């Protein structure tokens, strides 16, 4: 599974890296929204608003991360998206936490 930025001519690779840096805060915010919802789910206090926000954030991440070469990030985000699409997510909270940790690590480690 590719987890590196697309190999390309220097110009587009450099430009993609600049866009990555520019949009990184937004990407991290989206992960934080999912994390907040995951913690609420684990504590049995997930509101519909939090679930919908997490669903939207995960959907956006699934579309964005692979575009920056993080295809595994897209897969993880897509799994979270499918869970938060349900009125009552059925994933074990520990598993969801693992996905989010992996996502954070992938994003942090992208060069």
């Amino acid at each position, binding site marked *: 599974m590719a987890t590196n930025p*697309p190999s*390309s001519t220097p*110009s*587009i690779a450099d*430009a*993609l890296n600049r*866009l990555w840096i520019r*949009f990184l805060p*937004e*990407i991290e915010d989206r992960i934080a929204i999912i994390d907040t919802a995951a913690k609420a789910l684990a504590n049995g206090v997930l509101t519909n608003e939090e679930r919908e926000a997490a669903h939207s954030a995960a*959907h*956006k991440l*699934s*579309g*964005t*991360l*692979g*575009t*920056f070469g993080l*295809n595994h990030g*897209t897969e993880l985000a*897509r799994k979270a998206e499918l869970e938060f699409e349900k009125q009552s997510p059925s994933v074990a909270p520990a598993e969801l936490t693992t996905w989010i940790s992996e996502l954070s690590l992938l994003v942090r480690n992208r060069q």
Partner: protein
Amino acid sequence: MSRRILIIDDEDDIRQVAALSLETVAGWDVIVASSGAQGLLRAAEHQPDAILLDVMMPGMDGPTTFRELRKNPATAKIPVLLLTAKVQGPDQRRFADLGVEAVLLKPFDPLTLSAQMEKILGWA
């Protein structure tokens, strides 16, 4: 051959990566719109050769925007490619049934997006 493409997507990051890809890899002119309503205006004004249209947008979503484009004689014949992160089969079939040229999946590869579009649109 130079082409003019309109990208309609509410997500700034996707819009900018797609624009970068089409401008840098293919050398096309790119116009962007951040909402369906803005996209309708830009399409009529700039007469692009094709439109990349996001499905999930607040307000006017992609399918609604597509139907509005088709209603206007000034934009009715512009080829539209839907862009979506919805990978499930029923969603894709529903989008394809709208009458768009193709449904492209997010994430896309910035290096091959223009080639994919050229092939679909018969520009290759």
